[in-house]
């Protein structure tokens, strides 16, 4: 399978098949996609294995999905959580 794209806040992001959403965003130079609820601090990947919950985002309308665990599928619409 060759590469495909997902959409992050309107912007197309290339994905190598099998990559997680977090990895694809990171590779595209997007390293934060969420702001914290108290101090408004930017957050992205931290633990990389699903334990820190820093990397939460919304995928196809489902909020609070862990970007580091969720494998990207063609056409996924991703927004900040």
């Amino acid at each position: 399978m060759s590469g495909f794209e997902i959409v992050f806040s309107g912007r197309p992001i290339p994905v190598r098949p099998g990559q997680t959403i977090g990895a694809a965003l990171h590779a595209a130079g997007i390293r934060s996609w969420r702001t914290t609820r108290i101090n408004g601090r930017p957050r992205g990947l931290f633990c990389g294995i699903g334990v820190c919950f820093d990397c939460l985002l919304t995928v196809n309308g489902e909020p609070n999905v862990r970007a580091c665990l969720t494998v990207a599928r063609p056409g996924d619409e991703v927004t900040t959580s």
Partner: protein
Amino acid sequence: MPDVVVIGAGVVGAACAYYAARAGLSVTVVDQGAVAGGTTGAGEGNVLVSDKEPGPELDLASLSAGLWSDLAAEVGGFEYEPKGGLVVAETPEVLTALTGLAAKQESSGVRAEVVTPEEYEPNIARGLAGGVYYPQDAQVQPMLAAARLLHASGAQIRTGVRVTGFTRSGDRITGVRTDEGDLPAGAVVNAAGTWAGDIAALAGLPLPVLPRRGFILVTEPLPEPLIHHKVYTAAYVTNVASEDEGLETSAVVEGTPSGPVLIGASRERVGYDRTVSYPVLARLAEQAVALFPALATRKVIRAYCGFRPYCPDHLPVIGPDPRAPGLYHATGHEGAGIGLAPATGLLISRVVTGYSGQPGRPIKSGANGRSGPAESGGQLDLDLFPFRPERFT
């Protein structure tokens, strides 16, 4: 030697320490664990008048609700929210019972309004028969409340110290024995929550305080509030007073200032068993979703349990123990200990300083020969008789 030793640094012990110190007494608080490490650390923090039938407990609750509001101003720092409670009825029959109760409560001074639930809670399920809104219901963060009251009391706090017995002179209690030595005191207050029966037993006194387990579910923090008041189904009212050993659950849902929604409440008599009962958690989830359908996709991130200290007649134990002069009890508040703590603490400080426990009687010189400050003198017309410790024997 302190005037008073309080056993237990939960919210009840903290309130006892606070009001005793305010009455001019010197206070030491001992706890085998940490501040708020007992049931207080597992409580939701509702301060309710709505769930009580007219009677002594409602009188205590009304007094306490006002005191919490005062304490929020005097001490503060414990997320006091006078947000009001909404009790909803699923069926017309339950609504009739609920409005009937509300009418009786109103004649005891409680404010209550029959309302359309969705006007108060836009996200609540449609098709409910109706509801009653109680503006006096409030919420506090119980752990912070206990810690702040203890801090404000200026009492000496000795955590990690376990009470192992009493020192006596004849029948009279003259202090406590601990694993770190004896602590003589003018008066000893047993505010050991669920363990208060064990403490009483150390003095050879029967006091039937038993644990009633409750689970709480905590959701992910919600960015915008979905739930504005404390909301519960009227079934709660019948469950609280139930004699049933088995599991009872009713939906009790509320938002918190820090974002998560707290979901209760289950009641089971299973001793001190901490094993998580997933069927119970599932029932709590189901009932919460039935009440607030928008919660369905929200995630639960935590669950915990605690043990409510209850007495067979579901009334707390507050007052001097005639079987052991010098010993006072402040326990058995079951699912309302946070709400009832300030009134309990105030009453205890009164009896320690000489209030007879019966309205209309003058305050006489107490164990320590002192009386309370003027602002808390005389006006308190609350009868302690229903809460007397010796009522079970």
